[in-house]
């Protein structure tokens, strides 16, 4: 035994050994315990953090907005649950909605974790289990993994145990979606929280693996800039378009093109997170990304319909289901590269590249499934080179001509069917009228609001290809769609946390706004830009990722500069940080965990509840998923919620079926313990929600400022936060907020420039007593200002309790 007790060992060498594998977990836990830092909940089961959830949910109550009053899960149904009735299994609409919400959360978590598992398999095969995690200047490599599972991964192989835990728990949660399981909404909610937490673990595993193996920027504030926009694609070259979320395949294409000197002969463009990750690939030493980002999911159909791509390669997640059908019409061969999307195509994984290229280039087959990613790396670029001249020769016609455009618009009878089916009920009729008269401006504006879903095409009684009309009419603005996006920089490093942590906890940096996720915006993409610019100017830390990170790069100021060019990417107030793709969202929660670990020296290992409690009360961070549409977005949001980070989604987010909203008017919910002595501590009603929807960015901005307020703010911090809350309310709502005074504990909390004015209001409108000589508040506030107070939800953390 002594021989192996201190070294590596590989079980491959053994024969006839019966090994009790599972105990390894126990051994690891034991080891960590000996080191004295294992918290109470490593690898929590479904009920492991339920008390915490119930506590959160008692302040932030579920508000259900069903998408359907019926349930069709089992064949006793379908059942009408309208009016919160019970169905055949005894479930009522409330519990069913929480179940539906849970299902969406675990679907999203599975998408990320499934992605992570795929990457891990692939990268371990390529780089080995012992390949070290390499993430930049950080000792705390995997904050989510460590906090949730108690594992401190150092290598790729270490991540496997964590993903196994995620898979086990997701299976448990999926089981509860079955008819006849949970009966109480509150416990479906707790399960949804569990799923959200797992999502962040799954995402973290994905990104750690790819950052470590694929040369992506490692906590790099100077991660390079890349071109973005439909307008930046050079259609003169053969165009190879990749769509999806999994960079493994495109990385091989880039390598192949590089090795074969094809990089300047092929235009490589990407849509969705694969695009984001391909501009991170091998950029850890800097350089200029070779590939270009086309844009978000909302550009997929427009890009295909343009006819510009010569070959399309898809991998997984957020890929339109009709890619093959749409591409076929324009003679664009499609290569699918992942088991999640196979489109019924023949599996060519074991065929020779030449044969596949021949079949696809000749049009004999519309596409191919190639699961061997080395083969994909070769086939896709070679196919693009071969197909481009063939398509050119054929004269593939995509969008209508100018004459056809006018004729199509004139064909419109203004019945309104398209507007009824449009997810945003856009004013297509008016734009058609104008277009028929030669005025394209309405369509040009509409184009930015349009998510290119194509539902209008399906319902036009005159068979007008409405989306083609929109795209054709907007060619001028599309050709100008050229922006700049910073390549995703990955995690926030330990030194950055050390530097900025105190400002965040004390409130002197007014807050972190995480602008994340998808492209289902209520009023087009520019709102994002307005929001980010406003908050950046006010010194908030803006963190971004995924589709939002892309769309933010599409706008320029008068000097022609994008936000990425104007604002640096350090973890400091007034910085704009693109962490990366969808799975990089784990770095946002990870940052909050790191603040607790590094700045506050809290033990995070298997210590979820305490860390969530810390974050909820001390870190003024709000997530914004303005265009959230996917199940992944709601999983991410729910993971943030369990960790005490509130999230706002755009109005479409109401279709996630439930929000978590507190009642500021119920005082009993706005109390904590002071850990120093266990006394009750009244707190401000902020965050006042965990998940809510908001109508417009004008409404959103003051709300963000307000919901960055935390009990732990020092006076300087509270003053700064209040200043922004009041100013943003005045700027966008035209008024002082109704509730600003509720956040005032002492006169030093008041914005300096307005102190006197505000004191007057407090006296006059709210009846507070003011000592005008000393300009001090004598009575009025319900809360004391006490920086050394230790706000906590957890009785057990109070002195004398343990």
């Amino acid at each position, binding site marked *: 035994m002594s021989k192996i007790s201190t070294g590596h060992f590989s079980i491959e060498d053994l024969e006839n050994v019966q090994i009790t594998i599972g105990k390894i977990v126990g051994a690891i836990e034991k080891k960590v315990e000996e080191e004295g830092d294992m918290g109470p909940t490593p690898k929590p089961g479904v009920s492991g953090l339920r008390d915490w959830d119930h506590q959160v949910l008692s302040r932030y109550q579920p*508000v259900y907005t*069903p998408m*359907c*009053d*019926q349930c069709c899960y089992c064949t006793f149904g379908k059942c009408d649950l309208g009016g919160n009735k019970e169905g055949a299994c005894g479930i009522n*609409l409330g519990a069913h909605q929480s179940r539906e919400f849970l299902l969406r959360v675990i679907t999203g978590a599975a998408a990320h974790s499934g992605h992570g598992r795929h990457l891990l398999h692939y990268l371990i095969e390529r780089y080995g289990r012992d390949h070290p995690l390499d993430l930049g200047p950080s000792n705390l490599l995997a904050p989510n993994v460590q906090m949730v599972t108690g594992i401190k991964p150092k290598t790729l192989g270490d991540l496997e145990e964590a993903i196994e835990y995620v898979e086990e728990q997701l299976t448990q949660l999926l089981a509860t979606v079955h008819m006849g399981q949970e009966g109480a909404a509150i416990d479906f909610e707790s399960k949804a929280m569990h799923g959200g937490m797992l999502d962040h673990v799954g995402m973290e595993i994905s990104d750690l693996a790819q950052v470590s193996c694929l040369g992506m920027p490692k906590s790099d504030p100077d991660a390079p800039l890349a071109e973005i926009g439909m307008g930046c694609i050079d259609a003169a070259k053969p165009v190879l378009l990749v769509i999806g979320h999994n960079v493994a395949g495109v990385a091989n294409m880039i390598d192949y093109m590089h090795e074969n000197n094809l990089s300047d002969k092929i235009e490589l463009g990407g849509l969705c997170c694969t695009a984001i990750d391909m501009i991170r690939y091998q950029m850890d030493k800097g350089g200029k990304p070779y590939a270009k980002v086309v844009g978000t999911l909302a550009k997929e159909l427009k890009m295909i319909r343009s006819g510009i791509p010569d070959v399309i390669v898809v991998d997984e997640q957020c890929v339109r289901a009709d890619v093959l059908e749409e591409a076929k019409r324009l003679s664009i061969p499609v290569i699918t590269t992942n088991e999640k999307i196979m489109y019924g195509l023949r599996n060519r994984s074991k065929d020779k590249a030449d044969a596949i290229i021949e079949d696809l280039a000749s049009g004999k087959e519309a596409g191919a499934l190639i699961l061997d990613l080395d083969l994909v790396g070769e086939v896709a670029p070679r196919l693009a080179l071969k197909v481009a001249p063939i398509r050119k020769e054929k004269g593939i016609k995509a969008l209508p001509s100018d004459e056809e455009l006018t004729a199509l618009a004139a064909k419109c009878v203004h019945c309104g069917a398209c507007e009824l089916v449009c997810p945003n009920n856009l004013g297509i009729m008016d734009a058609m009228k104008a277009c028929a008269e030669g005025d394209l401006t309405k369509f040009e504006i509409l184009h930015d609001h349009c998510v290119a879903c194509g539902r209008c095409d399906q319902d036009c009684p005159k068979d007008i290809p409405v989306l083609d009309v929109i795209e054709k009419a907007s060619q001028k603005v599309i050709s100008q769609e050229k922006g700049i996006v910073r390549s995703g920089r990955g995690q926030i490093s330990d030194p950055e946390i050390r530097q900025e942590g105190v400002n965040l906890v004390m409130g002197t940096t007014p807050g972190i706004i995480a602008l994340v996720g998808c492209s289902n915006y*209520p009023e087009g993409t520019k709102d994002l830009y307005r929001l980010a610019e406003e908050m950046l100017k006010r010194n908030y830390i803006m963190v971004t990722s995924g589709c939002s990170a892309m769309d933010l790069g599409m706008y320029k100021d008068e000097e022609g500069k994008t936000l990425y060019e104007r604002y640096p990417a350090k973890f400091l107030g007034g910085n704009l940080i693109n962490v990366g793709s969808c799975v990089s969202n784990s770095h946002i929660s990870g940052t909050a965990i790191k603040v607790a670990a590094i700045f506050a020296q809290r033990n995070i290992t298997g210590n979820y509840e305490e860390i969530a409690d810390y974050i909820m009360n001390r870190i003024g961070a709000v997530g914004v998923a303005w265009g959230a549409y996917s199940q992944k977005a709601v999983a991410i949001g729910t993971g943030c919620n369990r960790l005490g980070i509130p999230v706002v989604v755009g109005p479409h987010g109401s279709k996630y079926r439930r929000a978590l909203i507190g009642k500021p008017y119920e005082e009993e919910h706005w109390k904590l313990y002071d850990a120093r002595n266990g006394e009750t501590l009244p707190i401000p009603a902020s965050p*006042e929600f965990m998940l809510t929807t908001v109508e417009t960015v004008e*409404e959103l901005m003051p709300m963000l400022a307000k919901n960055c307020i935390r009990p732990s703010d020092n006076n300087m911090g509270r003053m700064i936060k209040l200043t922004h809350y009041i100013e943003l309310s005045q700027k966008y709502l035209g008024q002082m907020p109704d509730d600003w005074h509720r956040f005032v504990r002492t006169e030093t909390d008041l914005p300096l420039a307005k102190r006197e004015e505000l004191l007057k209001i407090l006296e006059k409108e709210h009846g507070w007593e003011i000592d005008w000589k000393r300009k001090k508040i004598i009575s009025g506030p319900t809360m004391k200002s006490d920086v050394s107070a230790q706000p906590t939800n957890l009785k057990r953390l109070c002195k004398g309790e343990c």
Partner: protein
Amino acid sequence: MVDATKNTLVYTTWGRKTAKPVNPNVAAKMVSKAKRPLLVAGAEIVDNEQLAQRAVAIGKKGVQIAATGHSITVFHGKDVNAKYINIHALAHYLGDKNWKGFDGQGSYDMIVFLGHKKYYLDQVLSGFKNFSDLKTIAIERHFMQNATLSFGNLKPEVHVEALDEFIENL
């Protein structure tokens, strides 16, 4: 008189319970009869002068206004009773018997909606429909199937006419 009930076409259904189409005069009478009506005015009125005027006019009739989104900007200086509130939070509070309303006098019994995004209001109303006894009236340009009562799908100009008739009868 405007017939606001004709076109009740929907794109999708939520279930078997659907709004009753209503004409402006009837809707107005119901609001008049209510003890504590509330107009929830959404952000779509901000850039629509026609709607903004009508929202103000309803407020002038003494109806409390909940201004959601940034619609409050329309009501400043208009001498109406308008308060900003987030619509999702409002929906939550309205379902709470303990909420005292904007004026501390208690909750509301008849909720009127104007100026909202169709899909968003459909969701908010879905919550009311299934989890409260509140009566809701949508006086929107689109048929809001999850309301208790709703106008049908109207052309913009007919909508304005219908609103005027509604206001007249308040």
